[in-house]
C-alpha cells in the first residue's frame, strides 16, 4: 500500500514508452495497452481514495538546496485522482470508437498515456518543483494531442498557439515558485507555512501568489491568456473532453487550491496577501462573463463548449480568489464529469454527422440518436445548475462564497447566460428537423461510445454524493433536498428560468440565427487585437534589437575594435613600415638612444 501511488506514475509512463518504442505499427495492441493501463491506474486510484500519507526520495541535494521527488496523498489529491483516472478511462474507451479509423491511432494512444502520466504527476506531486516539471509535461502532451492531425494547418497552428500562450503563464509561475521558495524557505507543500508570509510583507507575498496564479491563468485559460483554449478544439474531440475540459485546464485551479491549503490561507488571514485574492477573483469573474457572452454567438458545437469551459473555469478561479478553494474544487469535480459528458456527447454527434461541427447543419438528432441526446441533456441540465444535478450543488457553493461581493451579480448573470447558450445549442442541434445530409443519416453511436456517455451521465447525477471524499474542511454544503426558500437558490433558479425562456423564445424551432451580435461572434476581437499587438510589438522590438545589433554591437563594439586596430596598424604601416632601410636604421638608432636614456639617465 505504501508504494502503490508510485504505480500511478509508472504504469502510464511504461505504457507510453512501450507504445512509442515498440508498438507504433500495431494500432490495436497499443490502444488496448493504453486503455488497460488507465484502467489499472483507475483501480489504484479507487483503492487509495481517502488515504492520507506521503513518501519521497531525495533527488538533488546541494548545500541548502534540497529537492525531492515524492507524492503527497490527501483528500484533495485522491479526489482529483478519481477525476483524472475516471474520466481518463471513459475517454480512452470512447476513443476506441471515435479514433477507430485514424491512421495514427498508436501515436494518439501513446500521447494519451503520456498525458495520463503527466497529469497524475501534477496531482500527486509533493512539491512545487516536481509540480512544475509535470506542469510542463502536460503542456507538451496537450501540444502533441492538439496537433494530432498536424497535416491540417489549423491544428498545427492551434497546437503552437497553445504551447506559446502557456509559456507566458508558466514563466510567471516559475518566478512565483522561486519567490515562494525565498519567502517560505521550502518548495515542499507540507513544510510550507503561512506565518512566513507575514514576515515577508503584504506586497511581496501578494506578488508571489499572483505570479503563481499566472501559471493558472495560462493553464486554466483565464483572461488575458484564454485565447488558446477555443483554438485547441482542433484536436480530436475525446482529447478536448479529457484535457481541455475536465483535467488539464482544471490543473490551475487544483494548483491554486493546493497552494492556498499549504499556506493555510483562510478568509480570516487573507489580509496578508493584500489585494491578490481580489485580483484573482475578478480575473475569474470577468473571464466567466466574457466567455459566456462569446459562447452565445458561436456556431461550432465544440467552440460553444470550449467557451462554456472557459466560463466555468472562471467560476472556479473566482471561488479560489474569494478564499473558498473548497467550493472551487467542488465545482471542478462536478464540472469535470458533466463537461466531459458534454464533450464526448458532442464527439458522438460529430462522429454521427460525418465530422460536421456546425450546429446549424444538425437538427433532429434527438430521434436519431436518443441515448446521446438524453445524456447530452443530462449534462446540459447539470451545467445549467438544475436542482438535483451535481452542477446545482457546486454552483450553489460558489454563490455562497460570493454572496458578500459584487461578483455575485456577475455569477448570477453568467448562470443565466450559461442556460441561454446551452439550450440554444440543444434546441438547434437536437430538436427541429435535419438541415443537412450529415444529420439526416446520423445513427446512434456504437456501444464503445455510448457506454462511456451513460456512465458519465450516472456520475454527473451521483458526483455530489461522492462529496464525503471531498476536501471540504466542512465548508462545502450538499443537501439532498435543496433549500428552495434560500435567497441564493431563488436567484440561481431565476437565472435558469430567464436563460431558458430567452433561449426558447429565440431559438426553439428556428432554422437560422435570428440575432447577430458581431462583437460576441468575433470573440470581442481579442484574437485580432492580440495579433496586431504582437505584430506591432514584435516588429518594434525586432527593429530595436536589429538597430542595437547592427550599430551598437556590430558597428561600435566589434567593428569599432576592428577598425581602431586597423587604423593604428595603418598609421604604423604608412609611417614606420615604409620600406626605406635608412629610416629603419634611424628608428633603431632613436630607439637605442631612448633605451639608453631611460635606463641610464632617467631615474
Amino acid at each position: 500500500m505504501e508504494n502503490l501511488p508510485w504505480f500511478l506514475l509508472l504504469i502510464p509512463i511504461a505504457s507510453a514508452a512501450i507504445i512509442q518504442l515498440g508498438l507504433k505499427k500495431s494500432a490495436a495492441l497499443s490502444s488496448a495497452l493504453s486503455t488497460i493501463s488507465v484502467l489499472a491506474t483507475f483501480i489504484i486510484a479507487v483503492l487509495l481514495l481517502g488515504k492520507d500519507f506521503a513518501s519521497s526520495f531525495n533527488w538533488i541535494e546541494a548545500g541548502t538546496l534540497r529537492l525531492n521527488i515524492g507524492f503527497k496523498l490527501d483528500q484533495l489529491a485522491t479526489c482529483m485522482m478519481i477525476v483524472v483516472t475516471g474520466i481518463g478511462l471513459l475517454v480512452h474507451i470512447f476513443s476506441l470508437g471515435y479514433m477507430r479509423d485514424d491512421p495514427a491511432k498508436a501515436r494518439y494512444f501513446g500521447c494519451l498515456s503520456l498525458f495520463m502520466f503527466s497529469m497524475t504527476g501534477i496531482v500527486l506531486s509533493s512539491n512545487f518543483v516536481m509540480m512544475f516539471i509535470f506542469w510542463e509535461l502536460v503542456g507538451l502532451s496537450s501540444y502533441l494531442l492538439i496537433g494530432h492531425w498536424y497535416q491540417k494547418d489549423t491544428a498545427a497552428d492551434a497546437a503552437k498557439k497553445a504551447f506559446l500562450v502557456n509559456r507566458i503563464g508558466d514563466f510567471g509561475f516559475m518566478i512565483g515558485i522561486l519567490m515562494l521558495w525565498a519567502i517560505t524557505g521550502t518548495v515542499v507543500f507540507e513544510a510550507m507555512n503561512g506565518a512566513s508570509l507575514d514576515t515577508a510583507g503584504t506586497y511581496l507575498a501578494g506578488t508571489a501568489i499572483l505570479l503563481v496564479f499566472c501559471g493558472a491563468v495560462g493553464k486554466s485559460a483565464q483572461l488575458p491568456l484564454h485565447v488558446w483554449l477555443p483554438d485547441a478544439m482542433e484536436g480530436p474531440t475525446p482529447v478536448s473532453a479529457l484535457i481541455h475540459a475536465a483535467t488539464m485546464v482544471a490543473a490551475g485551479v487544483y494548483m491554486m487550491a493546493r497552494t492556498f491549503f499549504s499556506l493555510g490561507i483562510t478568509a480570516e488571514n487573507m489580509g496578508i496577501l493584500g489585494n491578490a485574492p481580489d485580483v484573482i477573483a475578478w480575473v475569474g469573474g470577468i473571464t466567466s462573463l466574457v466567455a459566456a457572452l462569446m459562447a452565445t454567438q458561436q456556431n461550432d458545437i465544440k467552440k460553444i463548449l470550449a467557451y462554456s469551459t472557459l466560463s466555468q473555469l472562471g467560476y472556479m478561479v473566482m471561488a479560489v480568489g474569494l478564499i473558498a478553494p473548497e467550493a472551487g474544487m467542488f465545482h471542478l469535480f462536478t464540472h469535470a464529469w458533466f463537461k466531459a459528458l458534454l464533450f464526448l456527447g458532442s464527439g458522438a454527434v460529430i462522429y454521427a454527422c460525418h465530422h460536421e461541427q456546425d450546429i446549424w447543419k444538425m437538427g433532429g438528432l434527438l430521434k436519431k440518436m436518443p441515448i446521446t441526446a438524453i445524456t447530452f441533456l443530462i449534462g446540459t441540465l447539470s451545467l445549467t445548475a438544475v436542482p438535483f444535478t451535481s452542477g446545482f450543488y457546486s454552483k450553489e457553493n460558489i454563490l455562497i462564497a460570493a454572496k458578500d461581493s459584487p461578483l455575485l451579480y456577475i455569477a448570477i448573470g453568467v448562470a443565466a447566460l450559461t442556460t441561454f447558450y446551452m439550450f440554444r445549442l440543444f434546441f438547434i442541434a437536437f430538436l427541429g428537423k435535419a438541415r443537412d445530409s450529415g444529420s439526416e443519416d446520423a445513427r446512434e453511436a456504437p456501444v464503445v461510445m455510448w457506454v462511456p456517455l451513460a456512465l458519465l451521465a450516472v456520475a454527473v447525477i451521483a458526483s455530489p454524493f461522492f462529496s464525503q471524499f471531498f476536501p471540504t474542511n466542512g465548508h462545502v454544503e450538499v443537501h439532498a433536498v435543496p433549500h428552495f426558500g434560500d435567497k441564493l437558490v431563488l436567484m440561481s433558479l431565476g437565472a435558469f428560468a430567464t436563460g431558458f425562456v430567452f433561449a426558447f423564445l429565440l431559438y426553439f424551432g428556428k432554422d437560422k440565427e435570428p440575432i447577430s451580435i458581431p462583437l460576441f461572434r468575433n470573440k470581442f476581437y481579442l484574437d485580432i487585437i492580440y495579433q496586431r499587438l504582437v505584430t506591432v510589438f514584435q516588429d518594434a522590438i525586432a527593429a530595436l534589437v536589429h538597430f542595437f545589433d547592427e550599430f551598437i554591437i556590430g558597428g561600435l563594439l566589434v567593428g569599432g575594435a576592428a577598425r581602431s586596430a586597423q587604423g593604428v596598424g595603418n598609421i604604423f604601416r604608412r609611417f614606420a613600415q615604409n620600406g626605406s632601410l635608412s629610416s629603419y636604421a634611424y628608428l633603431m638608432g632613436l630607439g637605442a638612444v631612448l633605451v639608453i636614456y631611460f635606463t641610464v639617465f632617467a631615474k
Partner: protein
Amino acid sequence: MPFDSLPTPTLNEYLMISGLLFAIGLAGVIIRRNIIVIFMCLEMMLAAASLTLVAFSRFHTVDGLPDYDGQMLVFFVITVAAAEVAVGLAIIVSLYRARQTIQTDELTSLRG
C-alpha cells in the same frame, strides 16, 4: 723620440674620439644610400666600440699593470668582424645579382 713631447691622451679623449667615430658611423648608416658604404659605416661603428674597449683596458690597472681582458676581447671582435664582412659582402653580391642594384632607396619591397 719626437712623440715624447706630445701629451699622453686621457681616457676622456679616447672616449670622445670613440663616440665621434660611432656617431659618424651611425650618421653614415642612416644617411647613405649605397649598401657598401652603409656596410663600411657599420664597420666604423664596430671599430669605435673596439676603441672604447682598448681605452678602458689601457686605463684600468690591476696590481699596477693594465687589464688586458679588454684588448683580448678586441681581437675576438676583429676576428668575428672579418667573418661578418665576408658574409655581408657575399649577401650584397647576391643581392646585386638578384636586383641589379645596391641602392637602398630602390630596395623597398618590405614596404607595408
